[in-house]
């Protein structure tokens, strides 16, 4: 960065993004330099190339990409920035892989405050440093006011999985156990509590977290027993299990009493007419494991802070219809079906 550019500082307290910050000129260089490079600083980024080049160890390369369009941008327990880092790390980690690097693409709406952008960038930087997964390349675009909801972030992640570890969604087999790493619905309720037309008071914080260390502990404990892992984000636990049921051509039978739900989340869902099984999470994983490995994996999960409340919540069953069934707390049966459209609060 030249001295001349350095002299023209952004007004980070009061300034706003305008179209010049996406035009490829000096203003854009200021924005990227003072907000993104300052926050994410690392040798690869500092090299200033349009790509990052790095050595990779032996193994299977894992790659994922994800877009983040959350509203509101800031919520109890996180923001769109930390979410973008955690979500992508988790998608890599669910393959049993060690995440190595991230890229970040920003689509920013004209008029967006520098202060908020810096807050988001700092949060991303903190999340990536804490996880040990640097952001090594990126992209910035600015669109006219009204064409984006503040800021959208797309992150791509790469990682390496051991060559002999293959976790995949079609590997669930009847008799396998279903493990869940903790309480469901925290993220969705935390976000909903901040929505302008729905604001309600809750002590619930988003569970947004990077799960790769928890995954590493599980892979280390019982690598042969793991069939598939997935983080149940949008659509909640219900969507994830329905996807796995289809992909593995099996059914699931859950025990309602065994699924961990915080009383505050249950209460908020009750108020809104929602089902916690369908509410989003950002720091939880579901694992399907061979029955003989389930207890070992559960112990490994519970020994990690992010799996302290882990539980075995059900099992894989034979079912030509690929239903996710649940034995209710009453001993009756029900389906945990795909969500039809968006889960909407009911009228009465």
């Amino acid at each position, binding site marked *: 960065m030249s001295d001349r550019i350095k002299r023209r500082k952004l007004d980070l307290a009061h300034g706003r993004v305008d179209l010049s910050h996406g035009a490829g000129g000096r203003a854009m260089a200021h924005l990227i330099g003072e907000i993104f490079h300052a926050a994410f600083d690392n040798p690869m980024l500092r090299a200033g190339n349009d790509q990052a080049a790095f050595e990779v160890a032996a193994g299977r390369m894992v790659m994922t990409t994800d877009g983040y369009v959350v509203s509101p941008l800031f919520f109890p327990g996180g923001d769109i920035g930390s979410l973008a880092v955690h979500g992508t790390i988790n998608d890599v980690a669910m393959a049993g892989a060690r995440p190595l690097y991230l890229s970040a693409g920003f689509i920013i709406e004209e008029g967006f405050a520098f202060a908020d952008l810096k807050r988001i960038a700092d949060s991303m930087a903190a999340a990536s440093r804490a996880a040990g997964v640097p952001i090594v390349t990126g992209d910035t675009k600015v669109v006219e006011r009204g064409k984006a909801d503040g800021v959208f972030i797309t992150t791509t992640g790469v990682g390496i999985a051991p060559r002999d570890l293959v976790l995949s969604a079609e590997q669930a087999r009847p008799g396998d156990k279903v493990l869940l790493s903790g309480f469901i619905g925290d993220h969705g309720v935390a976000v909903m509590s901040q929505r302008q037309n*729905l604001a309600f008071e809750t002590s619930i914080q988003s569970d947004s977290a990077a799960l790769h260390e928890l995954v590493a502990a599980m892979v280390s404990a019982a690598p042969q027993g793991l069939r598939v892992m997935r983080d149940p984000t949008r659509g909640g636990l219900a969507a994830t299990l329905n996807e796995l049921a289809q992909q593995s051509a099996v059914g699931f039978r859950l025990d309602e009493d065994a699924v961990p739900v915080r009383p505050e989340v249950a209460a908020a869902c009750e108020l809104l007419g929602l089902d916690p099984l369908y509410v989003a999470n950002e720091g939880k994983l579901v694992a399907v494991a061979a029955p003989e490995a389930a207890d070992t994996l559960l112990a490994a999960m519970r020994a990690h802070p992010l799996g302290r409340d882990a539980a075995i919540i059900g099992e894989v069953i034979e079912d030509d219809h690929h239903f996710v069934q649940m*034995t*209710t*707390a009453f*001993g*009756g049966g029900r389906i945990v*079906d795909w969500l039809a*459209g968006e889960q909407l*609060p009911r009228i009465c």
Partner: protein
Amino acid sequence: MKYVDEYRDGKVARQIAAAIAQAADPSRSYHFMEFCGGHTHAISRYGLEDLLPSNVRMVHGPGCPVCVLPVGRIDMAIRLAQRPEVTLCTYGDLMRVPGSHGTSLLRAKAAGADIRMVYSTLDAVAIAEAEPTREVVFFAIGFETTTPPTALAIKLAAAKRLSNFSVFCNHVLTPPAIRGILEHPDLAGQPGPRLDGFIGPAHVSAVIGADAFAEFARDFAKPVVVAGFEPLDVMQSILMLVQQVNDGRHVVENQYIRAVTPEGNRIAQAEVAAIFELRDSFEWRGFGRVPASGLQLREAYAAFDAERRFAMAEISAADNPACDCGAILRGIKRPTDCKLFGTLCTPETPMGSCMVSSEGACAAHWTYGRFRDHARRAVA
């Protein structure tokens, strides 16, 4: 969760189930209609069907406000929302309800109509206040439960002298629908359902009172038990109904004493009466026109009546002729009796009213209970 967990205790549920099994006379069968979609939802969501003896059968009723809203009224709302000056505010579960030709508010919104989902009538008033250049219309639907908040919104808008707020009123009344089922149980030559009693609505009764259902116990010799929406409320109410039938009694009993009184909420009733009056008749989806079953704004509040303000033309649109919603809403048929169920008609692509809202009989069975159909077929 205080005051909720107490009503979801599985152990107590099994005890009540055992009491029902003991009380139910094996030489006879019992058919009880739960009028309200909230009860249908609870029965399905908690798998209560599995806890009842085979001779106690629940018959799902028409009590889902989204389900009984006719296609024509949805079409009217969509047409209104398409006016450039209008912002239509609506409860979330109305967004996906199909109008004619595969339209819905959700699709109209995607096509550019200004349709906003609100969680309270007061949110709609706030939008009108904040955006004085927009004509803000609240799309009001629901039974007696949701009418007082609509009345409150109109009262508030009047007090604030808002000239850009109005209500598209579709509020309907519970008792005329129950009377309709009892007086005309048959439909198009199909014999009516056997009904030995009713589970009375929960929230509706909190407003209009348990006594509102006395006419059915008296005139039609049907026991009524007003029940809360929690699963233990439903189980206990079924036991109370079985006992009434066994004893040859037919009175209104109130299981939901923590919320419902015999006379109901007089203040809410007065607020509603001040602003609304009966329509001569109102169309119910699957029912046709039911006399004195809907509400409209009184003349004094005509300025807040969207139908008058925008000279909205009444639209009448027919349901899909292959759809058995009418018979299902009256308890004559079960969801699986309809040939569209699970084929053309699913929650993703609802054809008929019963599949539209999560509280409709077909949606509840599809979403929570259809595994039983496959299990039954496998056994057969």
